[in-house]
Structures are given as structure tokens and as C-alpha cells.
């Protein structure tokens, strides 16, 4: 059954969350524009630290990573994490980007949420983003010898892609 931690289930508003998280790491960008949740933009070097604090802190307790997507922003490559707390039921979105398109690297969050293992493999498969400390980083859907990263915006494939 596991330990039932004794949390007072307290839903935190976006403002309260912003204040709390900002107090840990000052150089974050917060925005709520263009999205229904609080978005946090973090630098790649502080990603792992922020994520572990988001999970372990009892007031935030973000223990459920429900979506890990890679996005190609034309110039940058980024990863978007949607995380939720199963006890307090608040949701935040954490985004991280890098301009390095040759060798994009982020830290893996597999040690924090085990569901990241397959999700990060998928992002590697389609975008080419490498995750440090991932237990088994290889392609997931495409074959081992596939050339290129299909979901990038500059991917060209005359045979398989049908462009309208």
C-alpha cells in the first residue's frame, strides 16, 4: 500500500504557487498568457533542481507527470512538462528550451517520475533531444537506423511525407 503522507489537501492558486516557487529559484519566468495553467520557464541547468523541489516539497507535491512533449520552436528546441499534484490537484506547466539544434541536451527526470522513461525516449526519437542520465536512451518507434528526426520543422522526406 505504501506510506500515506499526511497532507492537508490545499489547492494553491497560481499566484501562491508563483510566489512559493520564485522563492526557491529567482531566475524563473512566469506567465499565464495564452494558456489555462501557470507556465514556468526554466533554464536547462536548473531544470533538475526545480523539478525535484516541485515534487518533494509538501506544499506543492507535484507527483504526477502527465504529459511530456517536445516542441520545435523554429529557432529553439524545447520540452514541455505538464505536472499535477494528486493530493492538492493543482497543475503547472514547466518549459525548457535550448537554441543548440546540433546537440540539444537536457537532464532526464526519470529519477523523479518513472513515467519519463518512455516519454523521453519518444522525444529523443522524434526531435533528437538527448537526456542526461537516462537509463536506456534509444529510439522508441522508428527503427534504429532511421536518419533524421521527423517531428522537427525542418525535416524533409520526399518519399514518406505528403505535403498539401
Amino acid at each position, binding site marked *: 500500500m505504501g506510506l500515506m503522507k499526511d497532507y492537508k489537501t490545499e489547492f494553491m492558486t497560481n499566484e501562491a504557487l508563483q510566489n512559493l516557487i520564485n522563492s526557491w529559484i529567482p531566475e524563473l519566468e512566469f506567465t499565464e498568457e*495564452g494558456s489555462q495553467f501557470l507556465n514556468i520557464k526554466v533554464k536547462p541547468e536548473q531544470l533538475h533542481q526545480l523539478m525535484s523541489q516541485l515534487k518533494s516539497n509538501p506544499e506543492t507535491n507535484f507527483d504526477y507527470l*502527465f504529459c511530456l*512533449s517536445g516542441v520545435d520552436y523554429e529557432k529553439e528546441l524545447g520540452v514541455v512538462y505538464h505536472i499535477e499534484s494528486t493530493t492538492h490537484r493543482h497543475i503547472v506547466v514547466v518549459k525548457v528550451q535550448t537554441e543548440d539544434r546540433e546537440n540539444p541536451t537536457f537532464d532526464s527526470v526519470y529519477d523523479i517520475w518513472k513515467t519519463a522513461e518512455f516519454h523521453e525516449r519518444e522525444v529523443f526519437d522524434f526531435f533528437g533531444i538527448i537526456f542526461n542520465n537516462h537509463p536506456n536512451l534509444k529510439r522508441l518507434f522508428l527503427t534504429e537506423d532511421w536518419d533524421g528526426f521527423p517531428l522537427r520543422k525542418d525535416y524533409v522526406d520526399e518519399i514518406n511525407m505528403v505535403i498539401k
Partner: protein
Amino acid sequence: MDTTTIKNSFKSEEYFINMGPQHPATHGVLRLLLTIDGEIIKKVEPDLGYIHRSIEKMCERDSYQQIVHLTDRMDYLSSHINNEAVCLTVENALQLEIPDRVKVIRTIIGELTRIASHTLWWGVMGMDVGALTTYFYGFRDRELINDIFEETCGARLTMNYNIPGGLMFDIHPNFVKRTKDFIAHFKTKLPEYDTLLTGNVIFQKRMKGVGILTKEDAISFGASGPVGRGSGYSCDVRKHHPYSALDKVTFKEALKTEGDSLARYEVRIQEMWESMSIIEQLIDNIPEGDIQVATNAVIKLPKGEFYQKVETARGELGVYIVSTGTKNPYRLKFRSPGFSNISLLNHIAVGGKIGDLVASMATLDIVVPDIDR
């Protein structure tokens, strides 16, 4: 998948077996690489991608109405709910006011789809553990639901009844009566199925204590749907983030705490009862009104990001749209329930026997096109 590296990495008593891609027990084209020592499983590695059709890339090129058609092909057993997910995302982004009639009909048809998916799961589950007759009984009842859908939506598997803005056409005049008849019929059949399979001592021995998943692991692996609820993790999207007419109905969330295969099995049987109760609450009072809200012929979402969660028969489906204001989404990601559920297969199958792997996989209820997209 590099088989030579696998063969070189295990000890001499272990051997390596390939289950699939065509295999009666794996529900779809899934290849499992098993490392086995005698009868005990040491490692399970799923090999995905046999039915990858790059739906996400296609969505970046198609219009929103066309995307709805692609979603049925993902988890084809809950096709209506998949369509609903994309339609709801688009409607929330455009901030459209959906008529009550549409919401109620969407909920009723969604719950009927859930029952159809669970009866098929039950039939195939019995077949996997060896009771070969249950397959026919499950399909017999699923055919009745398919007949209802055929009359209203025109299709039996890939419905495409939802469009952004409402429904494609109004329900058939026979719909209410046939649904009520089906509910009355199914209420007599479900206890029969319970006695046939659930009460059987051989079945209990095969499922009890097999494939145990603790609540912490379920949350960490992102399990949702009946897989999570069998371990005591309350994850029903219909309760926590209600959509359509689900905030108007009362139903209990099926939760069990043991976390073994028998718990997940019982959660799904319980869910079928709850679905029938939801339908009964709504079927008599379908409000009158329009079935569509006018949208532009070319739908353009405003700039921004939109996320919608729905509860399919397998678990939590999420649709994440990044839009730059054009007529196609800039990036569309489907968070599929089967993808997270299958990542815990290695965790629950190691240490058990091959028969246990088959039983656990049957209770995870994965549909491979949902995983591969």
C-alpha cells in the same frame, strides 16, 4: 531492436524469447522481448512502433475538422471519446457555448462506448487465461451496442459523430428506446458474467496476487484509468476535471486497493455498472435544442496553448495543442493512456511466470494503435 546486445548481456541459464508481433495474447502488433530463466521472467522490454502512422505529424498539416477523423484510429475501441477530446479542446479554445443537448448526448454515447470497450476487454481477457467461451459472450453484447451506433452515427467502429461545435446529425428517433432496452438486457447479463469468470476458483488463483502495483508506483509511472484505480489511486478525470454533462450526474468512482490483477479486473466490472447508472440518469431527459453551434468553415484557434483531458476506457487521454493562430495546429500532442500503462509492464511482470505476464497484460488493457499513434 538489437537482439545481439540482449543475448550478450544475460547469464548462461537465461534464454531469450520473442513474443509477437503477431500473437494471440498481445492485443495488437506489440513485440515483447522476454529474458527468461526457466519459467521466471527476468526482463520484459516492449518493442513499439509496428503501427506508428505519424498521426502527430499529419495533424500539423490538416485542418481541425480533419484531425477529428484521425483520432478514431488511435484507440479504436473508445473512438467516440477520442473525438470528443479534440472537439472539446477546439471548443474551449474558441470559447464556444455548447448547447446542453449536445453535452448530454455526448455523455450518453461516451458511456455506451465505455461499456462496449469493457465488454470486448472482458471477452478477450477470458480467452487469454484460457476460458475460450467468454469471447463469444462479450462480442454478443458488444454487437448490440454497435447496432445502436450504426443507426445513429452510421458506423460501428470509427464513429466520427462529433465535430468541433457539436454533433454531425441528430440522434435517430429509435435511439432512446434501443438504449433503454440494451441497459435492461445487459443488467441481466453482467451478473452471469460475474459468476462465470469472477467466481471461478481457477480464475481467482490466476489473478490474485499477480502483477502487484503499489499506489506510489502507479502515480510515478503515470498510470491512469482502471490500472491506477486498481491500486487505490483516484484518477478518474470524470470526477476531478469534469467535461460535457458529467458534472450533472452522480456516480461512484470504482476504487480497489490491492493493486493486483484481480483488483483491476473488478474495477472494470464495477465501471460497467457505473456507466449504466450514468446512462439511466440522462437518457430520459435529453434536453431539446440545437445540435450544432455555427463555426467558421476554416477554424483558426487563437494564439496560445490548450490542453484537455478526457477519460477513455483505457485511462486519461490528453490533447495538447500549441497554436500560432493559423488554420493548422503548430504542434499537437496526444498523451495516450496506453503509453504510460505499458511502461509499467516491466515493473509488474519481473519475477513472475509467463502465465502471469499474460494475465497482467490482459488487465492492463492496452490497444497498440493508441500507444504507437
